[in-house]
């Protein structure tokens, strides 16, 4: 068990925290994404960052509701979250989910929620360059491939921060043929995660994982819980579970962290 405190606990103990870790629905409930939440929390603890979570006071950011077209539901969720965040006078937020990140960073300000918001890939990059995360001297030349999530990449223009983190880990990135601005979606965005596909001849994640298979890397590094699910399903569909695994950036960091 990792010691993690909620914002309410900080408040009742009369203490303050540096940064709020926004866990998100996937990070809270999805079994695979929960592991990522734990990995990231462990990194924060090791790096001695005073962080809080909202726990049961956190609600879905409203991203899937808004992309699905349900603006009313989005507004209700967003306004409640902003109330909570403002009540705790949160200044800085870090998200492990690029959808949560995008919504809080780009859509909350005009509703009254103005914070410094970071996706954990950027946050990790900063911690490494500040020396708060120290990486083991390891001379294995393992190669990985990296999947750009749409909401971190094209939506917010963050392509290099996660790659720099991977570089710091002394891992060799074998780029997929479609990467950065040209990266192919995993198929989950725009609330697709929560519905069946329309009629077609292939699933998007199966198309995407072929790019990863081509790189002959055993590890696919992702930065989004929904991409992780989609890519893992793609691996299963191609019966490559024995050879390939999907990891979040934070899990890679934790493995190599002193």
């Amino acid at each position: 068990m990792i010691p993690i405190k909620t914002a309410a606990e900080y408040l009742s103990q009369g203490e303050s925290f540096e940064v709020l870790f926004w866990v998100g629905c996937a990070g809270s409930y999805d079994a695979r994404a929960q592991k990522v939440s734990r990995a990231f929390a462990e990194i924060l603890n090791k790096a001695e960052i005073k962080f809080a979570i909202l726990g049961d006071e956190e609600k879905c950011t409203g991203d899937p509701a808004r992309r699905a077209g349900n603006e009313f539901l989005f507004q209700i969720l967003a306004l409640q979250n902003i109330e909570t965040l403002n009540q705790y006078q949160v200044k800085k937020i870090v998200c492990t989910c690029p959808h949560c990140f995008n919504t809080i960073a780009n859509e909350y300000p005009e509703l009254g929620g103005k914070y410094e918001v970071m996706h954990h890939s950027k946050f990790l990059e900063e911690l490494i360059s500040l020396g708060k995360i120290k990486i083991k001297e390891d001379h294995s030349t393992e190669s990985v491939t990296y999947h750009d999530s749409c909401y971190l990449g094209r939506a917010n223009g963050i392509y290099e921060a996660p790659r720099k983190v991977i570089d710091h880990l002394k891992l060799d990135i074998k780029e997929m043929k479609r990467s950065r601005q040209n990266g192919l979606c995993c198929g989950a965005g725009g609330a697709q995660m929560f519905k069946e596909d329309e009629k077609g001849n292939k699933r998007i994640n199966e198309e995407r994982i072929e790019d990863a298979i081509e790189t002959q890397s055993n590890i696919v590094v992702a930065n989004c819980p929904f991409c992780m699910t989609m890519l893992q399903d793609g691996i299963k569909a191609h019966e490559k579970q024995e050879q390939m695994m999907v990891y979040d950036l934070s899990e890679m960091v934790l493995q190599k962290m002193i």
Partner: protein
Amino acid sequence: MLQILFFSILTATVFYIAYGRFLQIYKNISLGITENEKHNSFTGLKNMILFALGQKKMFNRPVSGIFHLFIYLAFVLTQIELLEIIVDGFTGEHRIFAHALGSFYNFLINSIEILSFLAFFSTFIFLYRRNILKLIRFQKPEMKGWPSVDANLILMGEILLIFGIFLMNSSDQILQNLDPQHYPSTGKLYISSFIGASLFGQLPQDWLVWFERIGWWLHLFVIYGFILYLPFSKHLHIFLAFPNAYLSNQESRGKMSNIPVIENEARSMVGLPPKEMVEQTEIFGAADIFQLPRRTLIGAYSCTECGRCTSVCPANLTGKKLSPRKIVMDIRDRMEEISNQVKPNVEYNDGKNLFDYISQEEIYACTSCNACVEACPVLINPLEPILAMRRYDILMNSGGPSEWMGMFNSLENTQSVWQIPESRDAWTKS
């Protein structure tokens, strides 16, 4: 004299008709809504220079990028020659710029000729890519019929135009020696003098005079035809790419526009004071062009149907019906259908809307991945209207995929996308 009269009447008629048609397009675009989003003129100008004038994104695909550049540059530079033709036409002079510009004229016309030659070659490459190589992005369902004909017509017009230029210049090159009084010297034009010497060298002078005139009129007719044809064609991108790039979205691509009326409704639901001065709207999202922002409408008229958006769309790549290009083309078609029938202060109703063009199956297949937005060389945003139509269908029609109802219920009841009877921090305890 007769020639001057004919030329003047022709020119006036062409520009009058074109003016009416362009005005109509302007009116159609004005049917859209204006949003008070953040727009910085300087950034707009920068986008226009970089993407419309500079064609930055065209080179993401180097083959079509470079051939398109040849045609583009030839087209831009040929306007100088066209200007001369028009001045000559009104005054009855011949090559009026030749004297005034001297040796620079020679440089200019030589440049036009070299670029025209490259453009001529490029046009054949483009015809080949469309009709023989049959690139996938030109073969999608929305390209059947008129859109393909439209594309080929423009390319053939281009060939005719360049043919006219070379017929005119190469016969002129020989005539300059035979009758220097009427044909002022242009200096040596490398391509035309070569064509002239090898093809027309032995022909009688009156034939050459005819050839020169045919070339001159052909150039003019093709250009005038073009001016009239443009506003009916996908080729309108040569003009509208500029305002479209200028007006394009400058905020984060991940941000969706706010609906203040709904925000206020939600504020009262959660016990917050409403924001003041909110414009009342009864329609949420978009069912028709009247609810789309003007920049979306200008985008639809700026689309040249290259299909780069569709060729990178994950839904389209995996065989779904959604094609971002079709969405953009449908919006234009709908504007054309409504065109001229909207009366001021009367609500337009023909019993149809955009959903007669674009199906639910299409809009719900979108992953909002922004690949189409990234791909468009002239900064059209096909994602915005897709999400606006979803909003309408969900909020006004209670439509949408049935699985989403489960998600909405879960969000309402447990404030999580999944209905899981567990504490949100359970992950910290295992």
